């Protein structure tokens, strides 16, 4: 699938759009970490939970459960939550 990488994580990927594989969001982040070491831990904590203030969208729909299934033609956006002042 195609993955949109937020600016804060482009020190790992060096580009805004990358390809990844995996049957779930969790597997997708494992695959991304294989290609870009260290990336997963910045987004997913050691207990397998999406970190607070991070948001994931699969084909435009917000998802928090990392067990969410993915298809090869899905588009996943990794986004930093916007708020504050």
């Amino acid at each position, binding site marked *: 699938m195609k993955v949109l990488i937020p600016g*804060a994580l482009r020190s790992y990927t060096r580009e805004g759009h990358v390809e990844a594989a995996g049957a779930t969001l969790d597997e997708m982040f494992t695959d991304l970490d294989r290609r870009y070491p260290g990336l997963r831990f910045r987004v*997913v904590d*050691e*207990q397998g939970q999406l970190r607070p203030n991070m948001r994931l969208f699969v084909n435009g729909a917000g998802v928090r459960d990392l067990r969410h299934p993915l298809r090869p033609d899905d588009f996943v956006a990794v986004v930093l939550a916007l708020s504050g002042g």
Partner: protein
Amino acid sequence: MSRTTARSKSGAQSADAAKARAAARAPRRAATAPARLVVLVATRKGAWLLHGDRTRRTWKVDGPHFLGHTISHLQLDPRDGRTLLAAAKTGHLGPTIFRSTDLGRRWKEAGKPPAFAAPAPGGLPARSVDHTFWLTPGHGSERGTWYAGTSPQGLFRSEDGGDTWVPLPSVNDDPRFREWMGTVQDGTPDGPKLHSIIVDPRDPAHLMFGMSGGGVHESRDGGATWQTLIRGMEVVEGFDPGTVTFHDPHCVRLCPTQPDRLYQQNHCGIYRMDRTGDPAADTWQRIGRKMPRRVGDVGFPMVVHPRDPDTCWVFPMDAATVWPRTSPEGRPAAYVTHNAGRTWQRLDQGLPESQAWWTVKRQAMTVDAQPVPALYLGTSSGELWIGRDEGARWSLIARHLPEIYAVEVAELA
């Protein structure tokens, strides 16, 4: 307005006194010749390195490093004089450790940053590291060993120079410690911290640390087992000092030339402990009772002299009502004792006289080891100060930085 003019005479006297004390100490423990120093400044929005000349008069600024990252601590490895570790996170991204072996020219992320173990089935609740708060190089004989303290409270060790970190289950997964730590809900708004990790210079297996909250603890076997060190420490009125979780040490320091002496700045006062050889008899003495009453003895940093175990410094803050955590009356000052806490003197020459509402966090004040040491402090308003002649004369090194979380000074190889 600063006090530079108004108190120049008393400042000169203090400076002369500092030099006289340095001369008096010289026969006992000769200080090294002036070295090249670097001041390591960790802030809410990045890190800076300030390289000083041998007179500590001019400073070359190197930074920002990691602009936008919250850097809780930046430490140089004294065993090689060139390896830096930085504890980092951003508002959104998880925590990590960056490492440089060339004084910050190039940084590489840790392969395995501090992270709690998965919980045992049916065991204690799972925890996740929010940020690494404290970094301590290991013993001089154990090259490559480092310790890290995290929020929520956790203790971690690296044996490969900070690349990979392992949790110490004797602390992180021990039911007693977990009770003393409480939950994140029980902590302060910035999160509960494990801090003040101390390695006895005489024995790499003798470790100590503090928890805000959760007391002071020590191990004599390299972290396999632990004992509490809270006897004599006070707690907030109405609570039982025998309950470890109520104890809130803010900063604990060991005197490098007299390792059986500890000083502590606590939520409830300033303390000294002289070890007796019998752990059951070791008791903290509240030496802050000799501080001026209108200033009080609450603060965060504790700084010990590199050679004189009778000298230490604190930086009091306003702990009245809702705990403003500002300088008392808007008049910042360090306080020093030269007799192990029997008397204290105010050190404010050069610091603002009024309407200065900043304060100094627990890692943001330190001292160098030059023949006449200078103090360094970073403020919550982003100013970096040097206190020449052991704090007798303060002047600005830098301002307009982000909120300063930690200041360390190191000698370059």
